[in-house]
């Protein structure tokens, strides 16, 4: 039965979140603030700001990143399902490295996970972190190559290697995926119970993907 009075008012507010979620979230927030492979900490935070603005329909650019970077961040944020390979090719022709595009995808998609989680549990969106100084590292996985996706991957493209061209973003994606949903090792375990039974989690996954018009 639904609660009443103070109990209901309490439920309408913020849910209690275990520390294991917050540890991963705070680690990703710190990661966002540091230089990545292609972008400085300030640029990475600006990419997140562009993505958030796009989500609420604010067309005002931050002016803190190149136009092509802002466009990519905004597209991944709200219309990833409309992205086509010709559009990605145009980004590259305008000077955006394909692996830099991978870094943008990683930043914006993890922001979506964390913001979506905070929204779901009734928290306000957290303040973006203060950027740390430093230069981009330039690190990419030398084994990444064109394998049929629009970005290089290490091996045939699939969810587990989607961001593998940029090792930090690859690792970060897996960390969030494991904490929020299941680890790669848990994927074949259909009898899994992780606060919910596996089919309950899969219903949320399937419905979310349908609403997002994504059927991978």
């Amino acid at each position, binding site marked *: 039965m*639904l609660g009443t009075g103070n109990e209901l008012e309490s*439920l*309408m507010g913020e*849910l*209690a*979140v*275990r520390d294991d*979620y917050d540890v991963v979230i705070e680690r990703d927030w710190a990661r966002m603030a540091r230089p990545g492979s292609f972008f400085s900490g300030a640029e990475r935070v600006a990419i997140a700001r562009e993505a958030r603005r796009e989500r609420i329909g604010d067309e005002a650019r931050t002016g803190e990143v190149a136009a092509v970077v802002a466009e990519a961040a905004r*597209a991944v944020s709200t219309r*990833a*399902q409309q*992205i086509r*390979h010709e559009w990605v090719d145009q980004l590259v022709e305008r000077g955006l490295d394909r692996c830099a*595009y*991978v870094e943008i995808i990683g930043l914006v*998609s993890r922001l*979506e*996970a*964390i913001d*979506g*989680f905070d*929204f*779901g*549990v009734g928290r306000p969106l957290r303040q973006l972190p203060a950027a740390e100084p430093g230069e981009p590292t330039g690190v990419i996985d030398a084994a990444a190559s064109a394998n049929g*996706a*629009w970005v290089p*991957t290490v091996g045939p*493209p*699939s*969810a587990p290697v*989607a*961001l593998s061209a940029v090792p930090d973003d690859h690792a970060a*994606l897996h960390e*969030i*995926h494991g904490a*929020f*949903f299941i680890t790669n090792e848990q994927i074949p375990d*259909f*009898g*899994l119970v992780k*606060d*919910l*039974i*596996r*089919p*309950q*989690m*899969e*219903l*949320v*996954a*399937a*419905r*979310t*993907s*349908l*609403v*997002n018009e994504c*059927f*991978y």
Partner: protein
Amino acid sequence: MFLREGSLAHHVPVDLRAVDQVAVDPLLPAGFELRAVADAVALWDAEEMPLARVALVDAVGEVGAVRAMAVAGNYGMMNRVLDAIGNPIDPRMAAMADELGVEYSRTDLAP
């Protein structure tokens, strides 16, 4: 596919049509409530979210509700990643996309 496998492993019924037909009972425990929070998170629906959250907590408890929010957030992430990198589409999934009316480019099909 994973939804069906999970229901078999847990010996609970599921109606797969419930994924895209809101009038269909998912049959899973708390299926209606889970589907509602998935919608509210994916659509950033600030009006529906508090009600969906309360109903889900009532159905699965607070710990389970938090997990559902995390799964929804995770799939918001994964959907964007796979769409944005142009992960080649398995032709078997293309048939499902056609059935659901999901738009995609035929040139993006895996060989």
